[in-house]
């Protein structure tokens, strides 16, 4: 009896200590050196923005307190942050075609699961952003992959509040397409969960055709809603950023500098927030993309001239988005409908005949991403995503060819957030099932293989300074 009582006392003491050492959230994001606000002021859980962060970004990284121009800053102030994630991860893929006896392909092939794991680190972001002057903002984000190879993830200058109205802001450069659910600010990091499938979906047949094409038609008609694009954007917002719009004219080159391609794409988005009593702001929106991609290259002595794509064919994406809050739980929801021209869908040059019976592929997809923000320092995340082909390139193709189911869950714990940096312990599991997408065995008579399942386990320390 006495022992049990003593055990209960010790348990309560330990529980008390654990509960009382939980620190209040007070973190400083990249702009902290300028504005001295905690990370949680702008981020639901960084990098995901909250309502105040959305408004701050919409104003061109300005608070409007007459201290926005860099002239008010200490001359030593340098608006730089970096972010990188040392990690351990495990990647596994089912139904991979491997030799029955390694090193001896003549003995035939079989399906096997391939798994790898180990310590690693992510790429590095070195981000400079802020204001050049009052109402002129900028961003430069050189980003490296884990081998240290750099590219520019974004580069832009933005003129804010043109004609003294917040409804007219002009941005020029390479930037993220304005969308309610940002892939750049997602709370998933693993190889399988760290991007939205539906933002980058390409029908399976399209991938298959392109892989077998000769170099002259090895164009890349890819478009990713989450990918930064080169162009010019006109945007605007209400004072509290509940109502927002953007219209962008983009080069048809998926944000690749040096390849103007001479054609342009369009992006438009609109979203509206509603304050719903004690639930907070609920937002709904819509977006549309209309673009074109070349189907073959001009040639010089038979070699493709990569900067001159010809035979453009069109594609579009349209979708609905929503952000819904119920106390500590919030849902990010996206629905996307996609269509590619039949020439793109079959990887056929526009000056060549189409395969018999081919049609432009269409598909629908979407996801519900749930966040449970226990506190600004502890967030549980989960996502269910599906993509379903609604029209295959050929009537004879299986209806579910290339369909995708994806599932992810994890948590981010910010053990402390002090004045100039952020650190998150990030754990995550992701599973993606791609229907009939594994390569067929050489002995198979079917052009399609079984389902492909890929999974990731991820544990990392995500930090930004």
């Amino acid at each position, binding site marked *: 009896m006495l022992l049990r*009582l003593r055990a209960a006392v010790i348990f309560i003491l330990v529980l*008390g200590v654990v*509960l009382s050492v939980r620190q209040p959230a007070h973190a400083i994001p990249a702009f902290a050196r300028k504005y001295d606000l905690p990370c949680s*002021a702008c981020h639901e859980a960084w990098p995901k923005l909250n*309502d105040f962060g959305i*408004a701050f970004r919409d104003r061109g990284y300005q*608070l409007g*307190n007459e*201290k926005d121009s860099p002239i008010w800053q200490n001359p030593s102030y340098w608006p730089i942050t970096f972010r990188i994630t040392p990690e351990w991860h495990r990647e596994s893929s089912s139904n991979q075609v491997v030799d029955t006896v390694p090193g001896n392909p003549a003995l035939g092939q079989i399906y096997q699961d391939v798994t790898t794991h180990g310590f690693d680190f992510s790429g590095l972001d070195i981000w400079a952003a802020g204001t050049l002057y009052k109402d002129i903002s900028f961003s430069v984000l050189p980003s490296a992959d884990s081998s240290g190879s750099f590219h520019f993830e974004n580069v832009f200058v933005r003129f804010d509040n043109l004609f003294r109205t917040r409804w007219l802001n002009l941005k020029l450069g390479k930037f993220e397409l304005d969308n309610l659910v940002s892939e750049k600010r997602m709370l998933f990091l693993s190889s399988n969960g760290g991007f939205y499938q539906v933002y980058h979906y390409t029908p399976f047949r399209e991938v298959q055709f392109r892989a077998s094409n000769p170099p002259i038609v090895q164009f890349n008609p890819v478009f990713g809603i989450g990918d930064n694009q080169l162009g010019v954007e006109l945007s605007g917002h209400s004072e509290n950023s*509940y109502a927002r719009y953007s219209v962008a004219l983009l080069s048809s080159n998926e944000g690749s500098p040096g390849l103007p391609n001479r054609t342009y794409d369009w992006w438009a988005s609109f979203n509206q927030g509603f304050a719903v009593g004690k639930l907070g702001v609920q937002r709904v929106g819509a977006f549309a993309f209309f673009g074109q991609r070349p189907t073959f290259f001009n040639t010089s002595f038979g070699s493709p001239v990569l900067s001159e794509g010809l035979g453009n064919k069109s594609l579009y994406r349209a979708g609905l988005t929503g952000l819904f809050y119920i106390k500590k739980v919030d849902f990010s929801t996206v629905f996307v409908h996609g269509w590619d021209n039949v020439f793109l869908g079959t990887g056929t040059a526009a000056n060549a005949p189409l395969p018999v019976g081919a049609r432009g592929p269409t598909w629908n997809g979407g996801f519900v991403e749930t966040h449970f923000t226990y506190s600004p320092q502890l967030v549980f995340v989960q996502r269910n995503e599906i993509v379903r082909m609604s029209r295959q390139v050929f009537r004879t193709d299986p209806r579910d060819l290339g369909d995708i189911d994806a599932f992810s869950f994890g948590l981010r714990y910010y053990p402390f957030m002090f004045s100039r940096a952020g650190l998150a312990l990030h754990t995550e599991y992701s599973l993606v099932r791609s229907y009939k997408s594994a390569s067929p065995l050489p002995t198979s008579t079917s052009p399609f293989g079984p389902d492909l399942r890929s999974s990731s386990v991820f544990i990392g320390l995500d930090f930004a300074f």
Partner: protein
Amino acid sequence: MKHNRMRAHFTGILVLLFAGVGQVIFAQESHIGGLTGEGSRGKQLYRRYCVGCHGPLGDGRGENAPWIDPKPRDFVTGTFKCRSTPTGALPTDEDLYKSVTRGFVNSNMPSWLPLTKQQRADLVAYVKTFSSSFREEKPPSPLSMPSESAANQQSIQSGNELYQKMNCWSCHGKEGRGDGPSAQTLVDNRGYPIPPYDFSVGTRFKCGESNQDLYRILMTGLDGTPMPSFANGLTPAQAWDVVHYIRTLQMNVKRKKQTAENEKKDRGESKPVGAQPE
């Protein structure tokens, strides 16, 4: 005997535990228009948005406070600059709500307009828990504000004379540049140096930007700063004259016709607070 001692230990530990784990929150509320703010909800918001500057105890000693000028407000003292109530009195809930909504120009306090009205009301309720004054007394009625007189040459001339007579110039300077002979000596109630407002470069005042806001600042003073209340020294008509004169010192202000209504519209406050959802 042994059991009694154990029970006493157990009870003591439980008491300590409850005292340590949770800060005691008085069921503080705020009432702004049709909205009722609740301190319990405001606490979560405070820890997310405000704690970095104002500190977990609301004493203005957050982790960023050493780097901030002007210093964050100490809520514990119950002294607030922007009020509609007489000097020395507590602000109304609506005063605090407006401060949260508007932010303070030339300080690190931003406008929290992107938060919903309910969230801002909740924050006000929680801010009130830091000072015992809000439990012990009620704010008096706001100062009455008579209609603005015509801003003509006569009024401006009268305002100029009052500006000299009431020694406004000793802090704000002869031309309103904040360079009066006392300017260098001014400190706030915490002993930090505080410069007088420079009318020549400023386009907005700390507690608003309309003529009504300026009148209110004159008549209520900015508690905690050297700016006194002139409620006993000026008649309402004289206060309007000073307002009109001060406007002539503001070189950077775009001369659009200011009316109370279009200023409210500019701030998105044309509808009564809490009357309907945003």
